[in-house]
């Protein structure tokens, strides 16, 4: 099948087929019949993963608008991992919350298709479509528990602001089109390289609006306000999925657009991103300090992490690109694990995501507490975990580009963030609650997922060399 004109799209095809089958399965499912639809998703994702691996280094491209360079494939693989973890944690929570299984998986897979496409597309229009595909699926996933007002409210806010922002994004595309006469990145880039930005006010508008579009998706300040609400309202599993997958995809597209087509204008968009990144890191961590809901807390933390990722883009050098990829991978495993724990501790009635619900977890469920601790330490950037390597990598990118200021801001904000990560640890280990509700039993599958994620976190933390090498290969082929 390879070496055909359609290689580049194979991963997406796999996933979308899985999604369609999931829908069909749901359609044919008798009421109350249990069907391993998650299995379909796994098959599709694994297929996509295998395809991505096979496409490695082949720099395939289809339709002239979809590329399968290593950069995209790396992101694809991260997304596959995201998907797989999500599936692992979903199986239990879906049943518990009585969610529509088929639709859930289908939407999740469609979202992943959109994400993959964002990473792979080399055409702004396509990026827009991908972004919309992803977004629409995720809007719905957010509001999946429609019996809960919060879920719907979250979906509503996410949707409205998303639509609002994506129209800005679209407007930006329009101006790019107006300036260059094309939406295709290479050609646009070539055309832009010809002219300087200040001479062309429409280009200014274009860049500004594109920044807005992407910044919104990765929840950068001041476009972040939807994320805490959306993350809190959505089912924990979905939150994990959003916070990692959407970010990854958006950043991939962000990097591709700004570091290839808009690369000539680097001097022009850097200051804006600098400010946004700084604000994002600071606000994300500082506001996180006063949160009591775990989901919300981690929502702010993921805002902050978005800021760290922006730093990688600002560095705009090879170290930066590679570090971004590494960061995405590390962050994906860590955050999914953390939200997995939250999801598994919830019950149908209560999300159990308040800080106090974790009091004395170390007694009632030591293993879970231990895993959670490792994940939180990784989020806080303590060695020897993935989070530390990721932060170090990103900030060395910043330093190597001379952005000491950003590095220092980021480091200090990460110290602040440690405070609220440790509040959870304090709850779990250092404060006992007399009437401790026994946490719900955790399925072997989910537990396995957690263990795997923790192991991954430790592996990336102790032996990051291989992953770093891959990341570097990924950026070697493009830009």
């Amino acid at each position, binding site marked *: 099948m390879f070496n055909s004109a359609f290689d580049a*799209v194979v991963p997406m095809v796999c996933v*979308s087929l899985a*999604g*369609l089958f999931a*829908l069909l399965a749901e359609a044919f499912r008798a009421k109350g019949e249990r069907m391993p639809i998650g299995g379909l998703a796994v098959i599709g994702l694994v297929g996509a993963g295998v395809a991505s691996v096979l496409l490695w280094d082949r720099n395939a491209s*289809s*339709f*002239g*608008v*979809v590329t399968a360079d290593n950069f995209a494939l790396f992101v694809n693989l991260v997304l596959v991992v995201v998907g797989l973890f999500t599936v692992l944690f979903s199986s239990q929570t879906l049943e518990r919350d009585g969610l*529509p299984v088929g*639709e859930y998986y*289908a*939407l999740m897979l*469609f*979202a992943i*298709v*959109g994400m993959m*496409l964002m990473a792979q597309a080399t*055409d702004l*229009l*396509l990026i827009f*479509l*991908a972004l*919309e*595909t992803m977004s*629409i*699926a995720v*809007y*719905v996933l957010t*509001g*999946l528990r*429609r*019996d809960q007002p919060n879920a*719907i409210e979250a*979906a509503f806010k996410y949707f409205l602001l998303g639509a609002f922002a994506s129209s800005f994004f679209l407007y930006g595309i329009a101006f790019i089109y107006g300036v260059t006469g094309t939406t295709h990145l290479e050609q646009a880039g070539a055309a832009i390289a010809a002219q300087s930005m200040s001479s*062309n*006010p*429409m280009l*200014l*508008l274009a860049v500004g609006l594109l920044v807005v579009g992407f910044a919104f998706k990765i929840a950068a300040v001041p476009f972040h306000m939807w994320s805490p609400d959306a993350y809190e309202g959505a089912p924990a599993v979905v939150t994990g999925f959003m916070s990692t997958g959407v970010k990854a995809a958006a950043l991939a597209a962000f990097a591709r657009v700004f570091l290839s087509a808009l690369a000539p204008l680097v001097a022009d968009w850097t200051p804006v991103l600098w400010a946004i990144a700084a604000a994002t890191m600071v606000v994300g961590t500082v506001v996180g300090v006063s949160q009591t809901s775990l989901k919300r807390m981690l929502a702010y933390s993921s805002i902050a992490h978005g800021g760290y990722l922006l730093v990688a883009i600002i560095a705009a050098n090879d170290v930066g690109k590679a570090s971004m990829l590494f960061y995405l991978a590390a962050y994906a495993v860590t955050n999914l694990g953390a939200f997995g724990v939250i999801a598994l501790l919830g019950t149908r009635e209560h999300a159990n995501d308040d800080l106090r619900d974790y009091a004395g977890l170390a007694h009632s469920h030591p293993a879970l507490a231990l895993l959670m601790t490792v994940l939180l330490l990784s989020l806080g950037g303590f060695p020897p975990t993935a989070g530390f390597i990721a932060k170090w990598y990103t900030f060395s990118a910043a330093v190597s580009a001379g952005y000491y200021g950003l590095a220092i801001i980021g480091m200090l904000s990460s110290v602040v963030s440690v405070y609220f990560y440790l509040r959870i640890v304090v709850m779990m280990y250092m404060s006992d609650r007399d009437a401790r509700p026994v946490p719900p039993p955790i399925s072997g599958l989910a537990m396995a997922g957690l263990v795997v994620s923790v192991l991954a976190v430790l592996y990336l933390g102790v032996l990051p060399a291989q992953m770093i090498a891959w990341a570097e290969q990924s950026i070697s082929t493009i830009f």
Partner: protein
Amino acid sequence: MTFDLLLFYLFAAITVGGSLLVVAQRNPIYSVVSIVAAFCGLSGLYVLLEAPFVAVVQIIIYAGAILVLFLFTVMLLNATREDGAEWDRSHPYYRPGPTRVGGVLAVVLLGQLAWAISRMTGLSAGVGEAAPAASSVRLLGRVLFTDYMFAFEVTSILIIAGMVGAVVLAGKKGN
């Protein structure tokens, strides 16, 4: 004052007026109706831009399909007037702040856009002077199904996602 400039101003007036009404109406139904008017004006502008097919699609799909969907929803929810008085007044987070801020910002944005566009050189050329019109449906079709083939396919996923989503969210309880 040439004829098409006149037409432009006419359609522009309809469009702007319609969309202003959309924003100005308290009653959703009126909003929907006035947006239909706005879209009609828009399609007129498309005609002036020698994009007849787009104009038609604008009328049929947009005004015909999508807005009817809106209308249905409004009817379904039977929320004719902008309700929520009991929410607005009593609500602790009801503040005129966002409204005013948003209004001001909108004006600023308009200023920015206008300023940027007006400073653009090479756009002063009239329609049809810069390049010959490329608007035959055949051409459209060919380009759509060659260059934009993949995008077209992607929209299918998009639509499916949208459909499924709509069903999941709006469908009857307890599926």
